[in-house]
């Protein structure tokens, strides 16, 4: 199969382009997604290709965007909507929590909510307030929602195609810090990556690190230092936050006996807590050190001059890995 070198923005655009092309029920809208192609240009040129009927700018109202998308779903369409930044999703939270996640259950399967809610998330990009948060746990906590976070252009394309084709609602969170930071070969045409399946990026024997999104790259940098220190790290990219790939965590931690969860989200009640529960349930007797999370502080991410304290550097990740191996 032919492949092109792409960044994540291009890969996501490619996935949406493919689905607009092969399914007339797919419509794409949100704030600035039409003429401008989105503030990150993720939907660039799609309106030119498919027309204003299928790719369009909506009024600036998140609840309206998600609420109307649910109406489209019950009437048979397959909307892919963009929330400009995850920090602006809260006006839509009522629609997501009260309706999108519930329509299938409430209607006993008569209506689904086959939509994708895309949103850039995550920080360390020297941004304004509300542009740096990682709210994935808020969505993963809601029964009925699927939450997907890619860490590479290749995964972004394959996972987004799966998400658009899913008959259930998917919150597709895009790590904006690496939107353009990573380039790789991505096959042309349609391919999909299954939702709910993590991936082992590096095999190792001393400790398992579970992470996702933009943190993967920082963990990989920490692993260089770990290797120099003689520590063999197994790195799992979770790729889907809910449903969690329990099996991949179980197999890995049973082998290594140690686990560090690395996320940007605040610590308390965060994704790290949930993943540690999975470790406790699935690999308790193999543990040689307390399952540990390296998460954000329970604080608001500081504005640019202070953000280096909040977001994990590779050194901080290595420091935690080393502590656990020496436990």
């Amino acid at each position, binding site marked *: 199969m032919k492949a092109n070198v792409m960044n994540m923005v291009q890969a996501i655009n490619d996935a949406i382009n493919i689905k607009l092309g092969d399914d007339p029920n797919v419509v794409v809208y949100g704030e600035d997604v039409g003429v401008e192609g989105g503030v990150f240009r993720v939907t660039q040129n799609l309106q030119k290709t498919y027309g204003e009927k299928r790719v369009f700018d909506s*009024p600036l109202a998140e*609840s*309206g965007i998600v*609420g*109307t998308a649910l*109406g489209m779903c019950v009437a048979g369409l397959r909307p892919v909507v963009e929330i400009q930044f995850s920090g602006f999703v809260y006006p839509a939270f009522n629609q997501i929590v009260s309706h999108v996640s519930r329509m299938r259950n409430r209607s006993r*399967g*008569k209506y689904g909510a086959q939509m994708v809610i895309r949103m850039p998330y995550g920080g360390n990009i020297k941004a304004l307030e509300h542009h740096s948060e990682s709210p994935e746990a808020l969505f993963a906590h809601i029964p009925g929602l699927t939450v997907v976070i890619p860490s590479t252009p290749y995964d972004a394309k394959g996972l987004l195609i799966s998400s658009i084709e899913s008959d259930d609602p998917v919150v597709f969170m895009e790590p904006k810090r690496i939107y353009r930071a990573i380039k790789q070969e991505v096959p042309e045409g349609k391919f999909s990556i299954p939702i709910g399946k993590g991936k082992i990026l590096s095999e190792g024997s001393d400790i398992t690190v579970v992470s996702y999104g933009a943190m993967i790259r920082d963990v990989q940098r920490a692993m260089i230092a770990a290797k120099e220190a003689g520590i063999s790290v197994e790195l799992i990219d979770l790729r889907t936050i*809910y449903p969690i790939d329990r099996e991949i965590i179980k197999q890995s931690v049973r082998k290594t006996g140690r686990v560090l969860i690395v996320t940007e989200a605040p610590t308390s009640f965060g994704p790290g807590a949930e993943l540690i529960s999975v470790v406790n349930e699935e690999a308790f007797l193999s543990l040689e050190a307390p399952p540990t999370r390296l998460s954000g502080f329970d604080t608001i991410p500081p504005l640019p001059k202070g953000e280096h304290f909040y977001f994990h550097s590779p050194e901080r990740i290595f420091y935690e890995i080393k502590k656990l191996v020496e436990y």
Partner: protein
Amino acid sequence: MFTKFDPLKDKMLQVMDDNGNVTAPSLKPDISDKEVVEAYKLMQFARTADVMAVSFQRQGRMYTYPPNLGQEAISAAAGKIMRKQDWLVPAFREMGAWISKGAKLRDIYLYWGGYEDGSLFSGAPHFLPSAVPIASQLPHAVGIGFAIKYKKEDSVVFAFVGDGGTSEGDFHEALNFAGVWKVPVLFIVQNNQYAISVPVKKQTASRNLAIKSMAYGIKGIKVDGNDFFAMVTAISEAFEYARKGNGPVLIEALTFRRGAHTTSDDPTLYRTEAEEKKWEAKDPIKRLRGYLVSQKLWKETDDKPLLEQYKKEVEKEFSIYENYPPYKLEDVFKFHFKNMPDDLKKQQVEYEKFLNWMEARK
């Protein structure tokens, strides 16, 4: 019609007086005597089912229930216009419209009696389940309207909300989107004077609720919601307007909730008996009966056998609910996703193990 009954001038469309005398013959809808009698019967049927639901709840045979008493003309008029291919996006106090759309009473009792199965409305397409969070259903109506337009279908969305709902952000976002997208949606506001205990004057400084249409560039009209003829006239004209691609319409139907907000509510805390009496005199069934009797289409004595027959039908439907199979464990889980995730399966399996353990202890 929209110009004649200008919300800015606080005009209200009305066809008959409190006793059922037609005072505006030119505005009376062109429907046959037989159809009027059918509508009267539907209103009586819905009222019987509704009043009996309250008493079933009082007897502990059903859970919390929101009475419809006094608002039946609005639903009957909507039901009269709504076709099979049209969509109903309900709030929760429009039983007559549900019945017209194809809901069976057993569905309604199943829902308020604690089974999600009551929202399935099998055999009744284009019918959303009840939306409990106020006004949050209105953006769905607009999305459906978008899909109708997108697929070039001949269909109109009937979306219901109450007076309190007009304060919610989703009401305004929905009207705004509907105006921009010019979708075939009728927003029917049942202004029954109170949002639980809060009167309309504490919801808004607007002169009326229909006026809110104007900010969104859409049509709006205020109608006597206890006047079946006025409601049919308003809804049919709005329906044709929307169906022809002119965009959405906001219809304020002025009415009064004669019962409580729900069976858990006590209206004596916030309204007077005098006010209740005033509205009893404007009761929609009383008014339509007045018309039918004056036209010799109905006799006062015809009510009794009709209501007897309806009570029997209600009892029969209620007994289907009361004899419904017990709630199954799998029904808690199986509708959350098209394909159930392993996590969820595991939770069900763990509970089954517990049940087996309980069984073994017996």
